[in-house]
């Protein structure tokens, strides 16, 4: 392999605009080989665009980088041979059967025994007995499984998964993530975009992107630590009233209800403690200083980036 330094994706300063609107702004990221890299961010934040730039489906307006050691601008054809890309929308042929779809992919990549490879994959995916079913007639979970099978069929080195679990039930989601971990254990690099916090916590590393800007990245612990957020978890009576009263007070950056508790967070500890002091003395409320959750961090980041970039 031309890239010996253990980095699968290395891009710098990627920028892409559509019709005058900047969708990706000066984005730089590195993904280690064999790792699962989570790509998080709200809808329309530029996740899909970034993934498409990495696999050569879009040309960046500016910026450069390598994918598996190949230049993303010049070597798109070589990258395509080594990368499996699972699109957000199901993009296999709905009017082809499971077997025909897999055979098509196998033939395109030049697998020596296309029929055999498709048959093996059907067994691996647990789709035996459904091989003659049209892909368009499969349920959401099975479609997603088939799509993953199709993009792993040619033994890629890198998988790019664009919101692979959107609209899939929890059991299928868990199976899916087990598979991704198994693939990564075999040395495959996986870049996966998602909305789900529990999925983010299953990644080795994560990056958070909003309005085209990469806001933070690192392991889950690093991202939480970097946020420098102080969070209090409050339980007790009339949390709705408390939430309304605290919102907008100095030092209170975020108030979010979590089931029977309320998370109150801020970056300026002193100001936060001043603001909540009157309520801490009141009875009926239990205040607990706690570690902010990933969701706290992201919601706070999103709120902040909205002010900055929109």
């Amino acid at each position, binding site marked *: 392999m031309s890239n010996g330094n253990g980095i699968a994706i290395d891009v710098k300063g990627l920028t892409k605009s559509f019709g005058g609107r900047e969708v990706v702004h000066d984005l730089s990221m590195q993904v280690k080989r064999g790792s699962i890299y989570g790509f998080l961010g709200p809808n329309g934040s530029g996740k899909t665009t970034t993934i*498409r730039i990495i*696999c*050569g*489906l*879009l*040309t960046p307006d500016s910026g450069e980088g390598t994918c598996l050691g190949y230049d993303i601008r010049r070597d*798109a*054809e070589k990258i*395509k*041979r080594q*990368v499996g*890309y699972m*699109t957000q*929308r*199901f*993009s*296999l*042929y*709905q*009017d*082809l059967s499971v077997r*025909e779809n897999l*055979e*098509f*992919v196998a*033939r*395109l*990549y*030049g*697998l*020596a*025994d*296309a029929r055999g*490879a498709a048959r*093996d994959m059907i*067994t*691996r*995916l*647990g789709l035996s007995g459904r091989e003659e079913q*049209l892909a368009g007639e499969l349920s959401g979970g099975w479609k997603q499984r088939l799509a993953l099978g199709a993009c*792993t069929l*040619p*033994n890629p080195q890198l998988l790019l998964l664009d919101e692979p679990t959107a609209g899939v039930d929890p059991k299928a989601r868990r*199976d899916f993530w*087990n*598979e991704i971990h*198994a*693939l990564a254990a*075999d040395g495959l690099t996986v870049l996966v975009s998602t909305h789900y916090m529990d999925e983010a916590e299953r990644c080795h590393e994560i990056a958070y992107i909003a309005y085209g800007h990469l806001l933070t990245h690192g392991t889950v612990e690093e991202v939480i630590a970097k946020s420098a957020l102080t969070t209090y978890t409050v339980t007790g009576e009339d949390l709705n009233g408390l939430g309304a009263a605290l919102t907008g007070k100095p030092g209170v950056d975020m108030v979010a209800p979590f089931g029977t508790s309320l998370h109150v967070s801020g970056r300026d500890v002193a100001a936060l403690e001043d603001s909540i002091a009157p309520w801490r003395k009141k009875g009926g409320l239990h205040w607990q200083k706690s570690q902010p959750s990933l969701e706290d961090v992201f919601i706070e980041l999103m709120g902040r980036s909205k002010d900055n970039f929109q």
Partner: protein
Amino acid sequence: MSVVDLPAPAREIRERFGFLRRSYAMLIKEFIQLRRDRVSFAMIVMLPVMQLMLFGYAINTTPHHLPSAVLLQEDSDLTRSILKALENTAYFRFLYEVHDVDDFDNLLKSGKVLFGVEIPRGFERAVRRGDRPALLVAADATDPVAASAALGSLGMVVQTALKHDLFIGDPPEMPFEIRAHARYNPAAASSLNIVPGLVGTILTMTMLIFTALSVTREVERGTMESLLSMPIKPVEVMFGKIVPYVLVGFVQAFLIIGIGVGLFGVPVLGNLVLLALLSTLFITTNLSIGYTISTVVQNQLQAMQMSMMFFLPSILLSGFMFPFAGMPTWAQYVGECLPLTHYLRIVRAIMLKGATMQNLRFDTLALTALMLLAMTIAVTRFRRTLD
């Protein structure tokens, strides 16, 4: 059940014959999709049958300035006057003057001229002697309307014209005899002209629409994103999408010619292999043009509109609807750019005149050029990215 349970088998990847392999992958996929699309499948059979029944009778107009040749075996004042008189009718325009019977026949066979006038040796002397020599007028009657109007005018026109030249007063009868040969279609049956024309028209329509939708359909169904992320080249996509329909076109051509021969009694005088070969060329040309359309347009509606924009001139200016020779010059130039024009000449010449490759070189070259042009545009226009 899942990937965890089974180790991934190492798979051998072949690097050789990548082009053929990937085109083949695409081709198989297109075949399966076509087979599943019942409506399209029905169209392949229904369309030619319906059209053939509907276009049973043609619309025709009176043509002018029909390209003609003269086989001159005698050059005299009288023969010049006759030719001038023929030209003055506005039916004929003499493009070639030949002195050899084979040249004369070839001009007719290749479709370069629709009429040939043969003036035999010693014609003037025979007229003056009152021998009533024969003036042979050979007409390419594969297009019976174009031929018959012109043929009908011959006698009167020539007689009137010659009065000034030769004779004082009205002769009691024609000083010579006009022998008109309606070649290739002696009964002037219009189905003989229409059926071969329909082969071309129907093929243009179906082939164009099949491929015009092919790329836009992938874009609209979202499958293009997947396809582009795989290592396939634009040329391979194109071949994969064109080849299955060559077979479809072949079936259609067979169907139309079969009905034409069986039901309308159209002969096939020429070589069937040549007809099949040149039909395949024509089918491929149309598929390439359709494919080019689909790489240019944004959605399926635009693809349909653009196909119609190409199809209408093809019908009107190719010589299918109206005799080609009767059209104004600019329209003839447009017509020369349409594959149907050339194919109509080819298919009529082979079926009705028994023409050989020798006679059809120009039209074959024109079709090939149009096909290569369309393919080049398609491959360069095909977008490898989603930009």
